[in-house]
């Protein structure tokens, strides 16, 4: 059963990955011939302050995204879970951002956040006429906000599905024991959602690690202002396709893969995801 999937994964996942690792050990400008460079790219990448700054920004995007998205997604999931026509309507509305392409979202927000002609130009909203994407201090948080706007609906959907899986008997028993809504949320909903949280968090963290398109569009392809939003994937793209240093870009790409792989393994191990304990023992 797994054979076709593994074949596809090998062909489009592992083979290019091996190519990137090898390319990381060469010197290639994308035009001429490829020359062996040994670990020169690696020592250059690791010695470059810009790499570490980009990695720092990536980790920041990852951590803040998780902190922002998880509570909102959980709250929306709790709101959407009970059945009802109005809730279904809201669920559809919340889901809309996920249907748009990242480039469309990026261009739209760029236009909306334009201090002269965007929403800041609306009477009564002048306090929004700040250089949100132009200030080195605010730009990264603005990017994180737009990422959250795009992805919260997806995670809310995960939580909604997770909550619907929780047997109502648990809530009924708790209600009989006199537990209020808050107690029921904290002692039934949250523990029962453990694996949903692990799934959602893994997707969020690993997803933020490789996040590229929206940052690219919002910063005009430069990771600016200055290098305030130049996350590691964007730094990789600029090194590879603007500076045409494929070897060094491949080294950065390998670094990303190692980091992402380590992170997802760590997540699954720490959370006990692989042990498959049931949260519904005795049911």
């Amino acid at each position, binding site marked *: 059963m797994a054979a076709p999937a593994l074949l596809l994964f090998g062909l*489009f*996942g592992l083979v*290019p*990955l091996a190519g990137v690792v090898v390319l990381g050990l060469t010197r290639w*400008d*994308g*035009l*001429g011939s490829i020359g062996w460079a040994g670990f020169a790219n690696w020592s250059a990448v690791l010695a470059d302050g810009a790499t570490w700054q980009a990695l720092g920004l990536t980790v920041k995007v990852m951590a803040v995204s998780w902190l922002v998205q998880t509570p909102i997604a959980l709250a929306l999931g709790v709101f959407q879970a009970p059945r009802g026509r109005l809730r279904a309507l809201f669920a559809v509305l919340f889901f809309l951002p996920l249907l748009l392409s990242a480039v469309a979202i990026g261009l739209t927000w*760029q236009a909306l*956040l*334009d*201090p*002269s*002609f965007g929403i800041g130009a609306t009477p009564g909203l002048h306090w929004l006429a700040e*250089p*949100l*994407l*132009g*200030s080195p201090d605010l730009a990264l948080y603005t990017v994180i906000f737009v990422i959250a706007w795009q992805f919260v609906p997806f995670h809310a959907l995960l939580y909604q599905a997770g909550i619907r899986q929780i047997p109502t008997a648990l809530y009924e028993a708790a209600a009989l024991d006199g537990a209020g809504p808050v107690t029921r949320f904290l002692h039934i909903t949250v523990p029962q959602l453990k*694996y949903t949280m692990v799934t959602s968090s*893994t*997707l969020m963290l*690993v*997803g933020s*690690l*490789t996040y*590229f398109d929206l940052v690219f569009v919002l*910063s*005009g*392809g*430069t990771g*600016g*202002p*200055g*290098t305030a939003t130049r996350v590691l994937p964007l730094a*990789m*793209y600029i090194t*590879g*396709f*603007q*500076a*045409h*240093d494929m070897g060094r870009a*491949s080294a950065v790409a390998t670094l*990303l*893969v190692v980091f*992402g*792989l380590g*992170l997802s*393994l760590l997540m*699954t191990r720490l959370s006990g*995801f*692989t*042990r*498959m*304990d*049931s*949260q*519904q*023992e005795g049911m």
Partner: protein
Amino acid sequence: MRRIPVDGNLTSPRIRRVIASAVTLTAAIGLAACGTSGPSTTSSAKGLTMWALSDQTILKDSVDAYNKDHPETKITLQLFANDDYKQKLRVAFGADQAPDIFFSWGGGALDDYVKAGKVDALPAADTDRFTPSVMQSATFGDKVYGVPANGLAPVVLYYNKKVLADAGVEPPKTYDDLLAAVKKLKAKDVVPLSLAANSKWPTLMYLEYLLDREGGSQVFTDIASGDASKWKDASVTKANQRLQDLAKAGAFGDNASSVSYDQGASTALLYTGKAGMTLMGTWEYANIAKAAPDFLKDGDLGYTAFPSLPGGAGEADSIVGNPSNFLSLNSSTKNKDAALTYFKDYVLNDSQVDAYLGAGSVPPVKGLESKLAAVKSSTDKEWLTFVYDLVQNAPGFQLSWDQALPSDQADPLLTNTDKSFLREISPAEFGENMSRAGS
């Protein structure tokens, strides 16, 4: 103790781990692989392929005219959006999928291809009808590697006549005039100079002019020919100092770094009267004509050369910008003769020149005076004559730095320009960073 899987189908921990890793890997690889898929350039045995930008509609007419006369060796033209065109072309050359004729900006990027032996030199007889200062951008080692394919694009200072009159400001002739104008315009609550700093390259235009006026054109000419130590020249620091002085004086308003050029906001600020002036290439004229035809018709658009800098070593008439775009010939083409025929008889021929002039753009062809005199619209005639004279009288026409330098220095250049503009680095650090990036 019963162990119940939370969701029934994926029971094996190993498969879960593989899937979790697969998500990571595909995401990373998807990125690593992006940009490698160029369109294949299959063509008939004798036909040619050509790549250009999608806004080059007049150039497209020249291909159509050629194809009409040469049905045997047709040119298949593919048009691309501006963003990432350079990357696409580079990858296509790397993969031997490049078109026979390609459109470029000349300068360092074209020289990369020349050095790699990917471009053929063109016979001198075919290129001597073009403006010599323009041809420098496509001349490497005394050989010419491209023919100009569209209008001259020096960078000029545009202004809104109404806004300047309201503030009692004359179009600035010197740098001190400019500083004084900034003060007066600021007091009127308009943005003195609208700038799309989010895109970074518009900011670079200021540095290019300021260095040219401050230290003369030789400083950057030396840098472009490989002497990175010239970045540490005192005039580079001074040019950055002046850029930062302008920013400190509020010349660019509070929001410049949020404005992206492609969204058209920096242009809109000028014609809506929210900004007094803007520094941009001559293509801005066509953009304004398209976005705000009434603004142009009412005669509210003014334009002038970049202010001079009394006391600087540079010449007041020198200009910077993009001399032109170029069409070059892939050295692995199978039908060189057909391409040369196209370059010689169809690129910027008589009807092409007329079409460009009609669109408000001056092609880099010698002896245009009589054609200019025959232009009907007085608004256009004034503009075209201004651009033509500006280029004719210029002792030097410096190619934009980001085009002139080898491509691996373009990003450090734009990033450091932006940082200097944001005052994240000191004026002296700009030169130090650039000399390190260039060595």
